[in-house]
């Protein structure tokens, strides 16, 4: 576990030895997160990286309290938000947190908006909470929201339905809905995956601006290291349900302490120059229910030995500002 300085104010979000699993049948559980550990300070930014199936999305769902809808439960560890435990909140308590304290941007801009409602209708849902007001007041608030996410011709956009807008526009509307109630934490699950590269950087820039403007912390989920590097000062790497390395983004990228982090780094396409040999990670990502014993990465790991193949997934071991779950992290530089 990474140490939090006990002298300062409590962290905004602290996830501690979190375990989550699907309830498959009566009494049978299928673990999807085991274990996740990280801390996010107020106004900080943390990027969550990992291949699909590593538990990133389930982690987001844990943090917005929608696990039950997906047939999953927390069965270990704890989470605190602004110093308050939120591990076992009831639905009514979650309702107070969601939107007001925690905003959420879902995965795909295509499916993130209700296809049958107009933009105005969907945004007025959030402003009504704060204004409680008249039609004209709601209208003004919605217009203000659209302007805040830099949407051109907001009056026309207000009247349209999602399928009439471009992907980038839709994503701006989704962001508007997520920040409307001034949350302290914004959770974005692959916010730019479905978008063109140019639109992608516009959206990321918008998120950054809004973050500064509103003093929000950001939890950004992505499989794209370049995005994380640009957006987040901290980074947590997930593999097969476990956070395997956590720490400052630049340190993790320049000198990874876990072979999986390094593998992610060397398989990046954005840093490659023509003629470079791109390394891909050997083997396939392990899926939920098929995790190996020991360190779950060992079947694909270039430095694994017999010590790695037994027992449980090793815990994160903190060294200064960062932590790695590799028992051989001391060998990392040697093999580089």
């Amino acid at each position: 576990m990474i140490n939090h300085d006990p002298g300062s104010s409590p962290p905004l979000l602290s996830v501690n030895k979190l375990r989550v699993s699907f309830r498959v049948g009566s009494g049978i559980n299928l673990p999807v997160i085991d274990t996740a550990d990280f801390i996010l300070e107020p106004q900080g930014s943390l990027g969550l990286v990992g291949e699909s199936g590593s538990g990133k999305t389930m982690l987001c769902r844990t943090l917005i309290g929608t696990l039950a809808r997906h047939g999953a439960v927390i069965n270990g560890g704890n989470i605190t938000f602004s110093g308050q435990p939120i591990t076992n909140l009831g639905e009514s308590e979650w309702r107070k947190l969601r939107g007001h304290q925690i905003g959420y941007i879902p995965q795909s801009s295509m499916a993130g908006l209700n296809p049958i409602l107009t933009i105005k209708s969907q945004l007025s849902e959030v402003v009504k909470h704060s204004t409680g007001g008249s039609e004209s007041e709601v209208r003004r608030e919605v217009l203000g929201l659209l302007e805040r996410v830099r949407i051109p011709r907001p009056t026309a956009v207000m009247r349209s339905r999602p399928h009439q807008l471009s992907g980038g526009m839709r994503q701006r509307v989704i962001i508007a809905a997520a920040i409307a109630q001034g949350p302290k934490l914004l959770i974005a699950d692959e916010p730019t995956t479905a978008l063109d590269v140019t639109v992608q950087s516009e959206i990321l820039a918008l998120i950054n601006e809004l973050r500064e403007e509103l003093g929000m912390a950001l939890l950004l989920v992505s499989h794209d290291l370049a995005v994380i590097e640009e957006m987040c000062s901290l980074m947590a790497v997930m593999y097969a349900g476990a956070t395997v390395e956590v720490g400052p983004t630049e340190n993790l990228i320049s000198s990874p302490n876990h072979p999986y982090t390094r593998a992610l780094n060397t398989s990046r396409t954005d840093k490659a120059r023509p003629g470079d040999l791109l390394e891909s990670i050997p083997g396939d990502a392990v899926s939920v229910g098929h995790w190996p014993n020991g360190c779950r990465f060992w079947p694909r790991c270039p430095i694994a030995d017999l010590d790695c193949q037994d027992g449980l997934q090793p815990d994160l071991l903190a060294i200064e500002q960062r932590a790695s779950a590799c028992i051989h992290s001391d060998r990392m530089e040697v093999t580089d």
Partner: protein
Amino acid sequence: MQGIIKQVGSFFQHSLVSRVLQAVLVSFFLLTIVFFLLRLIPGDPAMVLLGENASMGQVEEYRKLLGLDRPPMEQYVDYMSNAFQGDLGVSILRRQSVVKIIASRLPVSLWLAGSTVAMVFVLALPLGLLAAVYHRTWFGYFFRVTTSIAISTPIYFTSLVILLLLAVKLDLVPIAGYDPEFPKNLRTLFAPALTNSILLAPVLARILQASVIDTMEEEFVEAAIVRGVKPLRFMWHYLLRPSLAPCIAALGYFAATVVSYGVLIEIIFNLPGVGMSLIEFVRAFDYTAVQGFVALTGLLVVATTLLADLLNAWLDPRANLK
């Protein structure tokens, strides 16, 4: 050139015009099948109808009535052109237009269908929604088992059990018969409509349940939960409305089933509707009337299916995108 052909092709696959044209084509085949239905009669229909002792004159007259005195091709062309003008033949026994006979019996059946639809909606919408939201709990299991029991129990047994409970044991409704006056007829329609609903509401509820479960997996639902949409608004705009398409698509099936069940229900509850008239035609070997009835109900289903198709295209902007 290839591109143009492809464009024209996709226009015909997806546009509204093409849907109407397809329905017309289906109706054409449907009427052709109905025309050939009469040829299933083994031997000479006129002889079968009149028996061994009929005179040659009588037989000839019937042959003329059935149109059997002319060459088959001519009969077919005549039948089809009449049918497309709304003339589905004449009852050989009553010497009256089939459409007219059926129209005269329609009010009872329409009342029955209307009260069934109302009851089915009242039962199925909340049930389907609840079953979707709680599909992982005991309620989901309970729902699955009870609906399969309700759906598989034959309607003629369900209706007898309902009569036994409501009419014989509790004396809440009359055991059979129909009062044509408006508010009073609802009392006579309650038991038959309830029987119909016990079979149909579970079907609709299941379609809705499956569809709502799919909708609940959508990202926009997750996002709406996080921004805290008010419960009633959430139920209607986020769960129900986006899930209605499969229910609407099943309208054709429901129309066919209501007609099928109507035949049995009207006999059991002694309601003088179109279903009962079909049984009268069948018992009297009124071939042409039966033929007309089949054509009419088949066309009704085709029309309902088309309507459902158009309704879905109109309701869901995503469908227009394709």
